[in-house]
């Protein structure tokens, strides 16, 4: 890859998401962006910064404060030729729209035998690590992943934030787009013209022969950090970034796990009946005889997200991941 000044940009994830929206709105005038405070303010995280100014009130606008209304209106707009992108201000404020999401967004294509399709994106700033008070740090991906008919993605890198959001907006079906809040300010040098793999593809972020860490969204950087530390101790950890929770990339994940025979799933959400349960279950089903040890999980505890002063205990950290790796029944330990 040649590095040229024109294509390589140093961007935060928030900026990359903003750029993705901007480029999508430029490319397709049916793309609309709306929600709470996404207009003049540019969103509480500034993801929609400047869009109203650039594209006008018809294309990027504030709505009344009602999430079911926002999602339901998106359904209607999508039924009638638009490609709406909506923002739920914080993950937990998506719950008032739950009926719309589960009973309509997820089911419309199916209900109508493919006649009515809903190309729409629900953006969810999610997860913790930002010192937010209650209801501001939920990880709700499991609710959506469990709901047939939804596509659920979570970027972990700046480049993926751009690519996955562009692809989500172009996607013919509704996408739940989980944005790891604490990575909004993570900066990377990226070339936005280089397209990353699409929805449905996991990627191996780091090679390693001893064990596989499976992560997505906010836990990917932690998993990479853990791998770095482990390497210094002589253990080579492979890191898989799921990127797409639904569809799930069984092939990449299972190939990775088979190559090491050991795995730890790292996710921020509470573990019980969650996406991480699913990963353990399906990988075990498919790779049982390659496994030297049961797959371990490092997840949030089964508690409401803690108050700011205690949140560090809930978040999967390097030590906790390495402890789980140590538990993978190594013959030599």
């Amino acid at each position, binding site marked *: 890859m040649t590095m040229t000044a024109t294509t390589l940009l140093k961007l935060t994830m928030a900026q990359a998401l903003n750029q993705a929206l901007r480029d999508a709105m430029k490319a397709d005038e049916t793309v*609309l962006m709306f929600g709470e405070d996404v207009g003049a303010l540019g969103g509480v995280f500034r993801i929609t910064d400047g869009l109203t100014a650039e594209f006008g009130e*018809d294309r990027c606008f504030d*709505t*009344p404060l*009602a999430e*079911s*209304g926002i999602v*339901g*209106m*998106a*359904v*209607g*707009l*999508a*039924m*009638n*030729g*638009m490609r*709406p992108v909506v923002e739920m201000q914080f993950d937990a404020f998506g719950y*008032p729209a739950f*009926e*719309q999401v589960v*009973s*309509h967004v997820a*089911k*419309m*294509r*199916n*209900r*109508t*035998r*493919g*006649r*009515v*399709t809903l190309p729409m994106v629900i953006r969810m700033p999610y997860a913790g690590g930002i010192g937010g008070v209650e209801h501001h740090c939920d990880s709700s991906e499991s609710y959506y992943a469990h709901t*047939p*008919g939804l*596509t659920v993605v979570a970027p972990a890198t700046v480049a993926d934030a751009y690519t996955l959001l562009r692809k989500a907006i172009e996607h*013919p*079906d509704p996408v739940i787009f989980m944005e790891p809040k604490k990575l909004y300010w993570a900066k990377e040098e990226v070339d936005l013209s280089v397209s990353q793999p699409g929805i*449905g593809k996991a990627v191996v972020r780091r090679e390693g022969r001893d064990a596989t860490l499976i992560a997505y969204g906010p836990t990917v950087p932690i998993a990479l950090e853990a791998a770095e530390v482990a390497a210094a101790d002589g253990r080579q950890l492979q890191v898989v970034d799921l990127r797409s929770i*639904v*569809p*799930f*990339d*069984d*092939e990449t994940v299972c190939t990775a796990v088979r190559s090491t025979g050991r795995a730890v799933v790292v996710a921020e959400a509470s573990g019980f009946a969650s996406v991480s349960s699913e990963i353990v279950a399906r990988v075990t089903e498919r790779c049982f005889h390659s496994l030297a040890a049961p797959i371990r999980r490092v997840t949030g505890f089964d508690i409401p997200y803690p108050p700011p002063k205690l949140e560090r205990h809930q978040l999967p950290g390097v030590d906790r991941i390495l402890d789980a790796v140590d538990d993978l029944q190594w013959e030599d330990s």
Partner: protein
Amino acid sequence: MTTVEERLLPSAEPIQLIDEHGVPHDHPQYRLPAEQTLVDGYAQLVKGRRINDQAGALVRQGRLAVYPSSHGQEACQVAATMVLRDQDWLFPTYRDTVSIISRGVDPIETLTLLRGDWHSGYDPYQRNVAPQATPLATQLIHAVGVAHAARLKGEDTVVMALCGDGATSEGDFHEALNFAAVFKAPVVFFIQNNEYAISVPLARQTVAPSLAHKGIGYGVPGERADGNDLAGLLAVLGQAVDKARAGEGPQLIEAHTYRVQAHTNADDATRYRNDAEVAPWLERDPLKRLEAYLVERGLLDEASKNKVVAAADQAAETLRIGLMEEVQPDPAELFDYLYAEKTPQLREQAAFLQDELAREEA
């Protein structure tokens, strides 16, 4: 009281242009529809009634899984579609079979849901009729989105969004009216207040002076009409559609009618109301009064009435024959319509089922 309030509050009494004896009454704001419109409307009412009856019979014969009858509400259902143009949209509920059919949707396809073949049977874009909504009030906000999209595209489309009295208690009713008002979306919200939500009477649903009084809280003009008077409904709904089309924003209309039969065939209305309550409503039947009016005016005679009845019978017969046909949806379809492209997981699951069925057959 200011003019804002006069503009937004409904009239003191539901608008009625033809009373239950078939006698017309002048109204300062609303005019009786054209004679031919009423004659056509009458034919649709008769057909609607026959379809209700036929569907009820088909349930008893096991041909439909369930049927929420709109017996007694035919005037509302027919009026809702008569006031629309082709480019307009209808958002119906499970109870609005007659509305959907009178919009021109194939009757057999209309009954796909209630027959248990699939969730929705017709192509919503063919006649601009949204799939029937079961989760109450959720469709009202979709209607706002469809209307708003039309306006963004520069079209003068109007959306007719139906719901029942019970549905007005749901949060989505509130959000839909408010969004429509704020975005000035051309939606006519049309409540068929049939006094019941399954077993729950209106008094337990609201203590507001009327459901039309909910409009002012959103800045939406509210109006109420006699739900069994096709003439009044056509006038009121017609004016609402005109206003919405002219850019005056959403309109809220409450029709006061009555659910003459049980909620569905599965319901037992004797548990929560008695016949004495139902009886006066049979007198207010929408067909009877329009017929009386048309006969009195010489717009309907024995011969033309027979023609209307024959056409209705014909429609019912088509329905009967169509539903007698045994349709068995293909299980493979279960996986076909979730996504534009099947996920690897669905491919596996579809193959699993196919394999299982193949072994079953073998």
